[in-house]
């Protein structure tokens, strides 16, 4: 480490930290990124899909150069009961149009590449060092402490992820509440390209994104996901942490059961496990966003709780990019004034507030409450799958119409409950 003072120290080499470093170094600031893992990306996992629009703004045409796995051409959603399923399969050239496009990524290589882009603009990457503490003088963050060594900077950017111990230490962020996060597990399972193309109906670099709801989380708020990589698949589950802790099955068992489900088992059959990973995911929307700026300090990405979980769509990486952009712009302006106080760095929050990141998060707060409805994860999937399954059954005796079925299901669940939930849907 060095005794010199830097313009900016970024803590954390995930999407948020590498993109912020890239943007700041590109504008000529002296930037050091400190990452506790041995390289950027070595500690990071994600479900799999990066919505491209925001990174495209930072690095136009990035997907031609970056180690992306496949471009998503096909979306599937399945509702599962223990032994039945309904699957929606949507294939559209719209998914591939520029601006709508999304890519399956594996973070170990993807973040590493982003780190190299930052380096190529002049950022210095110090990997294998955990930032243990921050230097605070006269109520201003002035640098970092790692392994007993100190390093000074005008601004420290905390991009240290969902478990941001540093933002907690500063009192900017409260300890995570179990009801505000989901815990995710994922397996990367190796298959041949041919097997993947055949099992998912793909060709070339086409990819599939698939989400699963219902029995696979045992009624717990959450869902399953599957993304196709080039020659492997990423498959996993997320469950609200609080609900999981109150539930009846351990997460490891839910994951095994999920992979044994008749819909899923043939997809992973014969594959080789090449990695098992786990990570928390912020999922409480605006109510978990911490204090975003202070004297000499900004908080970005997952550390700032900027993830949007809409069930069938999880967005965190695209929002990490947006927060990095807003932070970089605010720092550049602060630099031009040589004023790194909270009132100067407040610009970050102002930019974020008018960005699509925060606006989407705020707009979705009602949706998040709706998503907490436990019926969504057991009774409703069961009802829908059951009705559709019966639609195709022919047996002797008087034929039932689908309306008989709907009425029976409504009676079983209670008319008031359904009416209330229907109203809740209309309000969204």
């Amino acid at each position: 480490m060095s005794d010199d003072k830097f313009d900016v120290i970024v803590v954390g080499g995930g999407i948020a930290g590498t993109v912020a470093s890239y943007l700041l170094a590109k504008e000529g600031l002296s930037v050091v990124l400190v990452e506790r893992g041995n390289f950027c990306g070595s500690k990071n996992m994600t479900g799999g899909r990066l919505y491209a629009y925001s990174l495209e703004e930072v690095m136009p045409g990035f997907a031609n150069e970056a180690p992306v796995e496949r471009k998503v051409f096909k979306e599937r959603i399945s509702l599962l009961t223990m032994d039945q399923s309904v699957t929606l399969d949507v294939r559209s050239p719209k998914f591939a149009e520029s601006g709508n496009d999304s890519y399956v990524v594996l973070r170990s290589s993807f973040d590493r590449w982003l780190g190299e882009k930052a380096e190529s603009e002049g950022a210095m990457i110090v990997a294998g060092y955990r930032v243990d503490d921050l230097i605070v003088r006269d109520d201003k963050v002035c640098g970092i402490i790692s392994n007993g060594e100190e390093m000074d900077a005008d601004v420290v950017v905390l991009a240290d992820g969902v478990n941001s111990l540093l933002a907690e230490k500063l009192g900017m962020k409260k300890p995570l509440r179990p009801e505000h996060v989901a815990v995710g597990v994922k397996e990367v399972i190796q298959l041949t390209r041919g097997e993947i193309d055949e099992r998912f109906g793909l060709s070339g670099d086409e990819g599939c994104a698939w989400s699963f709801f219902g029995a696979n989380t045992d009624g717990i708020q959450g869902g399953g996901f599957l993304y196709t990589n080039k020659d492997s698949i990423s498959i996993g589950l997320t469950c609200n942490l609080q609900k999981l802790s109150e539930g009846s099955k351990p997460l490891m068992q839910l994951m095994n059961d999920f992979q044994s489900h008749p819909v899923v088992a043939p997809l992973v059959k014969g594959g080789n496990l090449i990695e098992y990973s786990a990570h928390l995911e912020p999922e409480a929307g605006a109510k978990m966003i911490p204090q975003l700026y202070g004297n000499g300090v900004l908080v970005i990405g997952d550390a700032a709780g900027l993830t949007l979980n809409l069930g069938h769509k999880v967005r965190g990486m695209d929002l990490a990019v947006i927060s990095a952009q807003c932070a970089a712009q605010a720092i550049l302006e602060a630099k031009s004034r040589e004023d790194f106080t909270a009132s100067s760095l407040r610009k970050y929050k102002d930019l974020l507030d008018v960005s699509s990141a925060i606006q989407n998060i705020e707009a979705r707060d009602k949706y998040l409450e709706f998503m907490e409805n436990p019926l969504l994860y057991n009774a409703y999937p069961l009802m829908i799958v059951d009705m559709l399954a019966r639609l195709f059954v022919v047996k002797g005796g008087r034929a039932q119409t689908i309306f008989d079925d709907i009425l029976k299901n409504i009676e079983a669940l209670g008319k008031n409950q359904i009416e209330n939930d229907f109203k809740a849907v209309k309000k969204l």
Partner: protein
Amino acid sequence: MTMSIDEKLGVDKIIVDEENAHIIIDKQYSDDAEKRKLIKICPAGLYKMEEDGGGNLTFDYIGCLECGACRAISLGKVVSGWNHPAGAMGVEYRMG
């Protein structure tokens, strides 16, 4: 065929810091409900009930995937200390 959690973790690259445990638990903590929560939520299956039937919790930080779930559930209860492993130590994802 499902793999055991130890087999799954065996596939991962984990650089073990033999000298420092990054998670410390309070073995005296007596609330069974709290212990059961940890057993359910740890994706690496590192929290276990001792097999002697005494209801004691065992924990081993080796194999930790550093997710932070046990911290969010039980810091100040069963979990008395939680930090990221020292720099360059712990899990190293090759896929991620």
